[in-house]
């Protein structure tokens, strides 16, 4: 009974705040609504007894990505600025597409009978997760672990190179090239 109330609370928060995230005209506020959505999602993971995943969700999403987004909002727009939305026609058509897609998916979900498994529940504490991440047996995930570490390194280098300021000599070079063209 208790877990049901918690589930309805979390799911209500997720639905309301995700709608507010995409409709709020103030960008900073919608970033904070996104934070609420991510925190309630981590609450759902806690309810499903995946504690490590919930902690990762809290630290990486709520602690990392949202802070990154808020910083970039502050860098690129004024706090008082109101976000522009699409025109009325485009808004109505997008809402129509989203509602139609949601209805289709919901009808499919409700008509499908899932046979819930009665197999024994695997322990998902940090020790067994760590073992699984570095082993290459049947239940090991060493390859995706390594691939993700390479991806993170590549993303880090790429982000630094893309966001780096132009040096003065490069700027001059670019200006000279532009003048030559005219």
């Amino acid at each position: 009974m208790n877990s049901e109330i918690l589930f309805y609370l979390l799911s209500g928060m997720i639905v309301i705040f995700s709608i507010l995230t995409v409709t709020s005209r103030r960008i900073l506020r919608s970033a904070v609504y996104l934070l609420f959505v991510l925190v309630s999602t981590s609450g759902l993971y806690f309810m499903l007894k995946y504690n490590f995943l919930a902690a990762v969700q809290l630290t990486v999403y709520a602690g990392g990505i949202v802070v990154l987004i808020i910083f970039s909002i502050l860098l690129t727009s004024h706090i008082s600025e109101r976000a522009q939305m699409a025109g009325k026609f485009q808004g109505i058509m997008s809402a129509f597409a989203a509602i139609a897609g949601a209805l289709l998916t919901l009808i499919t979900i409700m008509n499908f009978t899932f046979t819930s498994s009665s197999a024994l529940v695997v322990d998902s504490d940090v020790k067994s997760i760590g073992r699984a991440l570095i082993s290459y047996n049947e239940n090991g995930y060493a390859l995706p672990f390594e691939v993700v570490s390479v991806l993170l390194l590549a993303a880090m280098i790429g982000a630094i190179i893309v966001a780096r300021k132009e040096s003065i000599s490069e700027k001059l070079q670019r200006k000279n090239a532009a003048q030559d063209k005219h």
Partner: protein
Amino acid sequence: MLLKINTSKVMTGSIPLQYFLIISTLMFFTGIYGFLTRKNLITMLMSIELILNSVNINFVAFNRFLYPNNLHGHFFSLIVIAVAAAEAAVAIAIIINIYRNFRSIDVDRVDEMKF
């Protein structure tokens, strides 16, 4: 045996799998709506984060309810979270670079590739 078997039952026995799928569906299509209607690049990125998050809920719920004897969905969600972090970092670097060159991050005003 690599993974220890735990005999304790899941606490969420009273909540069916469908409820989790409904939540994730609503979240996914809210993200789609936001992606289609927003003009600001950062809010579009936030819609993408919503979509990725809803997919994660699906993976985790399917793992818990249908295949509790292994952890495939759990690890897939972990990796999706890592990919989302990398994607957000690169996207924000690109957005800041665009802002430096165009003084705006509205998709309507960022319409030329070479300047």
